[in-house]
């Protein structure tokens, strides 16, 4: 199966489908063949991965003791039919 070449612009539009493993086999092959020779698209894909990593590092909201106790009180009241 010969995979047709894709342009850099097309690669930028397909990157999410690629990362989500949603590309048909032929398009996935075209995508990966393009990456073999295109340094800028390698950079672009790396930046998309960095973006996902950065999103995953947003600070968390800890469960404060007071919140936990308030929720537990509400849970008890609900159980007691209150």
């Amino acid at each position: 199966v010969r995979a047709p070449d894709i342009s850099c612009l097309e690669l930028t539009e397909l990157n999410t489908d690629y990362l989500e493993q949603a590309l048909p086999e032929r398009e996935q092959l075209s995508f990966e063949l393009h990456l073999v020779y295109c340094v800028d698209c390698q950079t672009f894909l790396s930046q998309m991965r960095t973006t996902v990593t950065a999103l995953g590092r947003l600070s968390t909201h800890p469960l404060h003791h007071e919140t936990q106790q308030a929720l537990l009180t509400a849970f008890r009241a609900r159980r007691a039919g209150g």
Partner: protein
Amino acid sequence: MALQVAEAEHRQSPVPILPSDPQSQQMDESDRRLLDEMRAGREDAFLALLDRHHGPMLRFAALLSADETAACTALVACWLTLADERGGPVMGATFRGWAYGVLLAGLQTDLLPGPGGERRPAVGQDRFLPPGDRWEAGWADPLPAWRSFEDPLLSAAVQQQVESALRRLSSTTRAVLVLRDVNRVAAQEVTDAMGISEDDQRLLLHDGRSRVREALAAVLQVTG
């Protein structure tokens, strides 16, 4: 060839797509067991579910709400609904997908049923060579590399930039992006929670990631 090997290793999305991977499945089984125990009145089960999901759910609610108070109010109501003996994950859905659906309903955020509007390109068209050029649709200029954001000083700027970019997204796109990439919720759980199709989920994810990438370029791009 080395690149192909590297691509094969990295092809897997850094965030889960299906909730059927062993780790997600194990967590869902544990969640469902805790849900049953919580509904039987076990406080330790309620606390265990709180401990596991409250933080990410509050972060989601806070990023979807106008203020933290509204987010907290919606989350308290959500937990009491989850603890109620009625309702529960429908066939094929996970506890997490169901719980986020309950939370979203309580947040009363205006979500569009799909991407809506005109689809925006991932990268500005002016970054590519115009039609008729020998290398049409290729990069017009080399793409500037990014610095690593591991530097603690840069890390704070990155976090701020990401949060600002998220706030600028439509609430529907923001909901998808926060669930998928911030809270690492599997794609199928997101479609369950939001009642959108897999294709729409991916389109929204694509748009959201593209906008955050643009914002990050402002702080990470190596200039000069």
